[in-house]
């Protein structure tokens, strides 16, 4: 009975999705402890479906055409490929053990995966699901960013505390930039001029000049009434015009809104507990934060920096991606 009702609901929603204006997108949230993905309609801001996954889903991204969802199921040592239409798991990728984060090349042909246990970055060819190369990096590789032209991948290693710049032709490391403790995430500006690296334990974001490969600015954070130890930058997103950035600050339960040209923090937005990763909707109207310890995600309006709605999802939401269509 329940199942039929659910199916009916799902079917209704499918049709309503089709009939909605272009501003409605679908967000996919990986729930690390729930072993599931919550599917959210970004227009109604409601969970419309839950997809069962393998064990401990964390890093999540989508193919550029919006057809497939890729999710690192860390405890199963693989990446699951999910059909975005049918929500069925249609395959797995040879990620190596304990995959956590990855980045898709701009041409959509390669996936660069951080393998924390083996101090490697694994390069996967998505056309034939083969491993192209494995690049030795520092201890506990985690964050992965790709330059807009696809020529460089930046990997951050959490215990070595470096951003490694990897040439995607030669698979060689050309630069190692020392950043603050436990670098978690790397994000390029869309014009390729800068790469921002968050340091969770160091409590800063290093802005690395992509031409010189040197740190040109370090952003630090101070929130009244919050101890500095709780300010732990993780997820970073920068708008396409390069003017605004959002940084999630972990157990301080806030997201910082930053002027990405002057590097000044303009606002701290209270969201939920242990805020982890972020994703924009394709129209950049909203940025969505995953709040691990409160089991919800928050929609933040990009223009005003206001938290407009929090949506309950599965247990320990970790990553989020929004479909391009």
């Amino acid at each position, binding site marked *: 009975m329940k199942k039929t009702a659910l199916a009916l609901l799902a079917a209704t929603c499918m049709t309503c999705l089709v009939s909605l204006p272009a501003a409605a997108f679908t967000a996919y949230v990986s729930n690390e402890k729930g072993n599931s993905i919550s599917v959210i309609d970004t227009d109604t801001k409601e969970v419309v479906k839950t997809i069962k996954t393998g064990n401990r889903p964390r890093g999540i991204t989508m193919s550029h055409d919006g057809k497939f969802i890729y999710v690192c199921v860390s405890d199963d040592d693989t990446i699951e490929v999910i059909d975005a239409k049918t929500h069925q798991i249609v395959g797995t990728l040879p990620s190596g053990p304990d995959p956590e984060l990855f980045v898709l090349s701009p041409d959509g042909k390669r996936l660069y995966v951080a393998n924390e246990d083996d101090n490697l970055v694994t390069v996967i060819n998505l056309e034939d699901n083969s491993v192209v190369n494995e690049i030795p990096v520092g201890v506990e590789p985690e964050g992965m960013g790709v330059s807009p032209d696809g020529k460089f991948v930046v990997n951050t290693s959490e215990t070595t505390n470096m951003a490694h710049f990897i040439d995607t032709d030669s698979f060689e*490391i050309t630069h190692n930039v020392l950043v603050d403790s436990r670098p978690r995430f790397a994000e390029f500006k869309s014009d390729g001029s800068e790469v921002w690296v968050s340091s969770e334990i160091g409590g800063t974001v290093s802005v690395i000049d992509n031409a010189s490969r040197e740190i040109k600015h370090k952003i630090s954070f101070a929130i009244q009434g919050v101890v500095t130890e709780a300010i732990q930058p993780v997820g970073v997103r920068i708008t396409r015009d390069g003017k605004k950035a959002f940084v999630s600050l972990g157990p301080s339960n806030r997201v910082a809104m930053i002027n990405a040209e002057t590097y000044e923090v303009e606002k701290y937005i209270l969201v939920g507990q242990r805020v982890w990763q972020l994703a924009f909707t394709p129209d950049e109207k909203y940025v969505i934060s995953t709040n691990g310890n409160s089991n919800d995600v928050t929609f933040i309006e990009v223009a005003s920096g206001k938290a407009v709605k929090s949506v309950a999802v599965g247990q320990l939401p970790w990553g989020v991606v929004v479909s391009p269509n």
Partner: protein
Amino acid sequence: MSAKRSRRLSWLVSLVVCAHLTTAAAAADKVSIGYLHAVEKGRLTISVLDQPPNNLGLAGAEVGINDNNTTGRFMGQEFSLDNVKLSPDENIVPALDKLYGQGVRFFVLDVSADNVLKAADHFKSRDVVIFNAGAKDNRLRNEDCRSNVIHTAPSRAILADGLAQYLIWKKWRNWFLVFGSNPADRSWADSLRRAATRYGAKIVSEKEYVDTGGARQTDSGHAQVQKQMPVFSQDAEDHDVVVVADESEVFGTYLPYRTWLPRPVTGSAGLQAVSWHPAFEGWGAAQIQNRFAKHAGRRMNGIDMQAWTAIRMVGEAATRTKSADPAKIDAYIKDPAFSIAAFKGQKITLRGWNLQLRQPVLLADGRNVVSVSPQAGFLHQFSELDTLGYDKPESSCKLEK
């Protein structure tokens, strides 16, 4: 393509020039760390599962060296470990001299408090950095503190406060304190009494369990123990929780399930305060646990983590200062801005007043981590971690400048 080639060429040239110019500088990029640990032969524990592994602590130091070298590969720095085993009462000085003669300037110790002090005073005003990764004695952080000893091991006071905060949070305010008759047991009991006073718990009864020698777990011993423990705990005032201080492992783990009143047991049995636990996977710890297990063939314990942290502090300072000079590394670590990531959910820093590492305390029941202290709501004007152990106004430590 040509740009890439020229870049590689210039890199080659700089490498050649470097090698040519300063062989001495290249040698200076080697960092040798001595690991000295006292190993008690044939130490007995009540449960065979609690037998310390032969490489306790050492394996943590080795993984730390490997981690430093992975980073060192990118920095042109190389780290090595010299491991020396001592018997518990052996004088540490000859081993220190030998390593110093070989160029070792960093020492990580898992030895008695007396030997820590011997090492500190022996190397007084020399270019040496000492880490205490083993001794929990409060006096090393108070009246017997030394300006050349950094403590990665938590003190008994830190552990007791971490436990007490949780018991208060649970509203288990009435304690029955049971302690052993050996000096370490008495010191642990003292720290637990101090914690009770600090956090408003009431010790309703105290009882000593006298160590009269004899075998530990024997073939049919359980039959006797089953009768002894209820009788032993029978005359206590009504309490919420049994707090046991038995570092010598004479009777503590006999108490759970055998107390006169059905009460949880904490302290040296049941729920215990530790710096690390083999089952802990929070805050990215799964990664160090996996890499440790791969290296050591077992999972990581407290002393392993304390040794790993000491080695990583040297590595971190060497990376940041781009130097192997002990004076520079020492200054970097003792700078108030120093911090290190050690899988504890927040940055780990040093207390300037006694060189004790500020650290959260795990509370574990032997299978899993139950909670992590400081508990929410125990506030502090500077760092909530300073609610654990001797805070600045409480410490009697006066470090020599």
